[in-house]
């Protein structure tokens, strides 16, 4: 398996083709739109927070397989998660993505660990981060 195949694992391509968590973000109280101006990828992430837990999440967006699969995998991982845990996962994911693949993901990252290989492609880090950055903005708004 070369770098390219590692990046585009079947897991990632499957999520890109049939993403999870899509829906109407506007149905949730906190929504955030995030755009990657260099490629035009965009996402709108909506969440509901109840008792410190992300009780609902829906997103819509368009973009490359990395940004879409990342949104999908993140949805599965963090829907239902306590806010504090979600923030910790976002932090860990960011750290891994910025490490050019050097930082090993912990078990907590689940399938999102698959993006470790994407981290080697600096121009694609933003793609993988798109949904996570949008979620982080929602969490901030929810905490305010």
């Amino acid at each position: 398996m070369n770098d390219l195949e590692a990046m585009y694992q079947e897991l990632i391509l499957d999520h890109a083709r049939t993403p999870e968590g899509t829906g109407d973000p506007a149905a949730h109280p906190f929504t955030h739109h995030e755009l990657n101006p260099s490629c035009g990828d965009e996402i709108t992430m909506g969440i509901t927070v109840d008792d410190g837990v992300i009780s609902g999440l829906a997103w819509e967006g368009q973009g490359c397989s990395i940004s879409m699969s990342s949104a999908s995998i993140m949805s599965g991982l963090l829907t239902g998660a306590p806010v504090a845990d979600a923030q910790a996962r976002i932090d860990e994911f960011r750290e891994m993505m910025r490490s050019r693949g050097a930082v090993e993901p912990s078990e907590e990252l689940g399938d999102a660990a698959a993006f470790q290989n994407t981290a080697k492609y600096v121009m694609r880090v933003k793609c993988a981060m798109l949904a996570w950055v949008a979620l982080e903005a929602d969490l901030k708004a929810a905490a305010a």
Partner: protein
Amino acid sequence: MPTTPGAVARADFPYFAAHPRSVYLDTGATAQRPSAVIDAEAAFVRSDYAAVHRGSSMATGEATGAYEAARERIAGFVGAGEREIAFSENATDALNMIALGMADASAGLGGERFALAPGDEIVVTGAEHHANLIPWQRLAAKTGAALRWAPVDERGLWTIDGLRAATSPRTRVIAVAHVSNVTGQIAPVEDVVQLSREVGALTVLDACQSAPHMPLDLGTLGVDFAAFSAHKMTGPTGIGALYGRAELLDELPPARTGGSMITVVTMEEAEFLPAPQRFEAGTQPVSQAVGFGAAVDYLSAIGMDAIARHEAEIAQSLLAAVERVPGVRAVGPQAGEERGSLVSFIVDGVHAHDVGQFLDDRGITVRTGHHCAQPLHRALGTPSTTRASAGVYSTEDDVDALESALREVRPFFGADR
């Protein structure tokens, strides 16, 4: 023996020595530089470098001579007088100089003939690069002028009729790209100039994608202003050129002010030199000009006719290759029609970023995204395309490599299921 385009020229570029298997199809974004350019600049810096147009030392004299000699050759390369070429940071900067100069004129800071008023109109096309769009939007916002444009069809093409329909007797500027950096469409410049003259407008030509690839004679074309960038012409980054007909360039207010462009300065006000110096505020891109001069020498030695013929063939091959691949469709002119040396395409079911990544893995450098032309992509119904663009060093082997890699893309991403 003079260099010929293609494989022979390729040997002049150290980049390909460093990456022998590289299929570089991103010249539309930026070109590689031949040894002749890199060495000319380095040699100048090593032993002849000094301030330009300042002071009286011999060193300054020699450096000034080198700088002005470069200007002369670049002017000759595009059919301009040497006083008609001002150096800029890049083509974007040159286009901004025009729009910002007109804004200054409109604010009463000189150059009355360039002043716009509410009700005046600026006309572009729906295919423009952001560099030939946003500066005009800002000029319109500052002056109350209106921005109009020729629409593009589903292949991203505009017509002279569409352009004419966008004009009126209030049109003061018509600004179009000579060659679209996305569709490769070649503008009918003579018709555009005639249209401008009919309505009394200035013609601004964005020559970024023509100057590197075909013989260009701005004086004969009769455009009023033009812009191009060295880095797309096998020259250095950090330098471009503003062309303006001599009498216009002497009157356009300089947006950027400072040293080397003045005659008399008091604490209250400043008078400016004639063109081109009035547009070259501050320390000039001296060694870059030397490199730029070497680049046009390099291209001239091969011959722009030969380069244009070569690249026209490559463009048709690229188009044919892309269209042979199932699930891939090109935008822009059809096969057999005239086009610039680039082809942008859409791969059904695969995002352009993923296409680019796959090709990159195969050693093929292309450009993906909106190519600084978001409105055009909106008209094409896609946020991004993949663009393969050729240069003097491109070969049919590059085209073949692209085609075979492209055939693998949809299967790899499962888009063919």
